[in-house]
């Protein structure tokens, strides 16, 4: 029984990580085969970085992830601020639920409805070919927004309201009290919202599939198009790079807080 319970953890880890591990290992495989590992090489990485279309897709993805996460974080933080300041409990609850619905909405529904909206708007203004970079940006900002609100709002709720009064009491204008006292308290929430929005944008496929055009491809779209014909081994290399990036981001988010604390402690000790 004890042995079973101890091995349970490892079984779960194996189930979760075996496919990823396999992919990482075979991205370094010299020969183009999944059945035998013929030798370690960066061959497929080299091939990927020579693929101009893939690199353009990578650039598009990074631009989109960065722009949409920054936009979503700015809008989401102010939305959370507004939600927190709402007096009427019923309106507050209602608005809160409305912002949460997009998270539970299936991506395919969101994707299709956004495409419909964009095409309809284009029709009204007599534009053709509206889909592309900017519709992607709008879509990605929109679907990240609730996640940012979700991560910032609790910080506002936890914020001790008497701190605001103390700041006013010491001579802050309401705006100064927000930036000097309240913002530092919610920054961790803002930061984790930003990272979440970034990763969501980076790996979104379903919504992007509907609101994009062939001239603006992101990595997930590019990979999908590649695998439709035959699986290129350079795709393994690309996926490994993505995994490493996401892993690095996760580590940063998890350790940023504790590193900040340690730095403070060291600064105190040195004084």
């Amino acid at each position, binding site marked *: 029984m004890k042995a079973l319970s101890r091995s349970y953890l490892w079984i779960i880890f194996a189930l979760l990580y075996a496919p990823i591990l396999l992919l990482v290992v075979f991205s370094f495989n010299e020969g183009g085969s999944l059945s035998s590992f013929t030798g370690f090489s960066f061959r497929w990485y080299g091939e990927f970085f020579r693929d101009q279309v893939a690199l353009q897709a990578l650039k598009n993805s990074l631009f989109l992830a960065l722009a949409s996460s920054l936009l979503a974080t700015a809008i989401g933080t102010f939305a959370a601020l507004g939600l927190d300041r709402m007096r009427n409990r019923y309106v507050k609850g209602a608005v809160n639920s409305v912002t949460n619905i997009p998270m539970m909405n299936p991506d395919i529904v969101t994707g299709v409805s956004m495409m419909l909206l964009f095409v309809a708007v284009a029709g009204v203004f007599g534009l053709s070919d509206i889909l592309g970079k900017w519709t992607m940006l709008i879509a990605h900002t929109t679907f990240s927004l609730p996640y940012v609100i979700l991560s910032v709002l609790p910080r506002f709720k936890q914020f*001790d309201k*008497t*701190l605001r*009064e*103390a*700041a*006013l*009491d*010491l*001579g*802050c*204008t309401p705006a*100064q009290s927000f930036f000097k*006292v309240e913002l*530092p*308290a919610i920054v961790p929430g803002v930061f984790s919202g930003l990272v979440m929005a970034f990763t969501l944008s980076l790996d979104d496929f379903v919504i992007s599939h509907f609101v994009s055009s062939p001239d603006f491809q992101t990595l997930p779209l590019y990979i999908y198009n590649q695998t439709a014909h035959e699986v290129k081994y350079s795709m393994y290399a690309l996926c490994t790079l993505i995994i490493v990036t996401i892993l690095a981001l996760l580590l940063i988010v998890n350790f940023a807080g504790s590193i900040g604390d340690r730095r*403070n402690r060291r*600064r*105190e000790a040195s*004084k």
Partner: protein
Amino acid sequence: MNNKLIELRSISKSFDGEQILCAIDLDIHDKEFVTLLGPSGCGKTTTLRIIGGFETPDMGDVLFDGVRINDIPPHKRQVNTVFQKYALFPHLNVYDNVAFGLRLQKVPEDEIRERVREMLVMTGLKGFEARKPTTLSGGQQQRVAIARALINRPRVLLLDEPLGALDLKLRKDMQNELKRIQKATGITFVYVTHDQEEALSMSDTVVVMADGKIQQIGTPTDIYNEPVNAFVADFIGESNILDGVMLSDKKARFAGQVFDCLDGGFAENEPVDIVIRPEDVDVVAPEKGMLVGDVSSVTFKGDYYEIIVDIKGFKWMIETSDYVAPAARIGLYIEPDAIHVMKKSEYSGKFGDYSTFSEEMEHLSDPTIGTEEEDDAE
């Protein structure tokens, strides 16, 4: 002491239809230590928040140095506040917390350093500059909160139950400390508490509040010796409060007897409340007593005995240094100056009878015990 710094003119305030303050009038003089004293929910914190600018009165005016300041926001008022739970900024260290107000005023960094140092010395916090508030004890946080408020050299310092979260020993030390700081700086202190002992030992003026009204304003001695009604008599210290009739000046009848007293100015045969403090009653042999009763309980309190005596159904509390056996028959002797006569009020008959008294009840009604919180501001 004579110039009025803050004047409250018939201030009324209600929250969600519940009247918290009813037409409060109060003058606070320059350099005065004023305490607003009352039970939880009496409106004392709301009064303080109105002075601080965190609440606006529904009716009435707040005057500061003769100028109406109802609509002046908190950050433009010459008052600073020490909050009940300190409200230190957690992301700033002690130095930056204390320097916060001066930095907003754009005081040169050199002067800030000097004034923060001075303030930390005065509050006994030298050497704590780089510590974060969360690493400090309650007493130290309290000192930071006081330093942070005082460094701005306000005309008035508002203190909202600042010692409520400290243990008894620390509270006593901080009481002396606050009194010393107030004397040294000459700043007007407005202090809110529900602890009558704290109020009596620190204040120049005590304002007793109940049910959104001011019951009495006076020096601690006045409040203790000359309470205006049964509420004040009961809230400040222990009191036996009896129904009585004023026969004529200096003659009162209560407990079935006529006593000489020192009060006068009442109508003939006017019904009154009689207050007799437990420590002002002398225990004598039954044949020498003005009143005779049976001891129903004796509690040893360290430096005195607290005894409950049943006299014709009314239970008296008496504090005496001589041991009295339970169930003994004793006489009580009351000097004329121990009898205080009050006019009848809405609080008559509600307080001052120890017939339901027990240690347990004492515990329940003692505001300093337990975690009861001032919530009338909500």
